């Protein structure tokens, strides 16, 4: 069981929305974590083509560093982060491979399609979000109630 936290969750969600709006207002970019992180991965073909002066890879790297600093800063400020993560290595490796592949192959994840795309009323993003919500629900139903029992 996890506790129902409507207020903390809505507040956290508002911060996510604020970040997405700010990234668009300042840099003119979609705050999609899979799109941002895949652009940080080598080879940096896109940026090499555009020339070294282009700092597209750098703001994305900075975004990723911001994500990594966030929990450390939160804990440093006295916050506690509750976490229960599976210790099944095989399961987590498979989950990571499928999550990463699917997010990039499908052009976005919970942030790019779910938050930014749905907010732009993009049909592609709404369809993508409905699809991954459906397969995620089915996956949890199968692992917890069919196989897991």
């Amino acid at each position, binding site marked *: *069981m996890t506790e129902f936290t409507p207020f903390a*969750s809505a507040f956290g969600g508002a911060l996510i929305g604020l970040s997405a709006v700010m990234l668009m207002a300042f840099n003119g970019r979609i705050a999609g974590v899979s799109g941002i992180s895949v652009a940080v991965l080598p080879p940096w073909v896109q940026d090499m083509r555009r020339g070294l002066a282009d700092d597209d890879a750098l703001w994305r790297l900075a975004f990723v560093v911001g994500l990594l600093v966030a929990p450390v800063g939160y804990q440093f400020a006295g916050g506690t982060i509750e976490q229960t993560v599976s210790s099944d290595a095989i399961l987590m490796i*498979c989950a990571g491979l499928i999550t990463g592949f699917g997010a*990039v192959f*499908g052009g976005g994840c919970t942030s790019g399609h779910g938050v930014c795309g749905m907010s732009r009323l993009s049909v592609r993003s709404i369809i993508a979000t409905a699809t991954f919500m459906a397969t995620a629900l089915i996956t949890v139903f199968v692992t917890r109630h069919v196989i897991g029992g």
Partner: protein
Amino acid sequence: MRIAMGFLCGLIFGVGLVISGMANPAKVLNFLDVFGNWDPSLAFVMGSAVLVTFVGYRWVLGRAAPLFDARFHLPTRSDIDGQLLTGAGLFGIGWGLGGFCPGPAYVALPLASFGIAAFFPAMLIGMWAGRASSARLSTTAVGG
């Protein structure tokens, strides 16, 4: 400035993920477990994030250009193809198995659990493979 703004937005995004509970896979999986120990919290995360972004985008995109770039970089495609459905379908399966989507995976990395140490490198390999497969199928850049 674009780099500083990238960092600031990543930081706010990450704190939002932490406060919302999305960095805890147990909470994500309980949200997805509608027929079990359902925890509807994450509907509030998505709902409020979409609401703020919807209103904010209407204001921001009404302007001529962003502050630190010549133009807004928005996805232009509107077709529904097999690649979108396959990718999104697979993504949901991975999310349902591990309880991590990419944003929370970054936030969970410094918390150094055994599970994220297995998940995170695999996710990057998956993303890399996803990009290679997309590039092979078309020349369209991957957005979002």
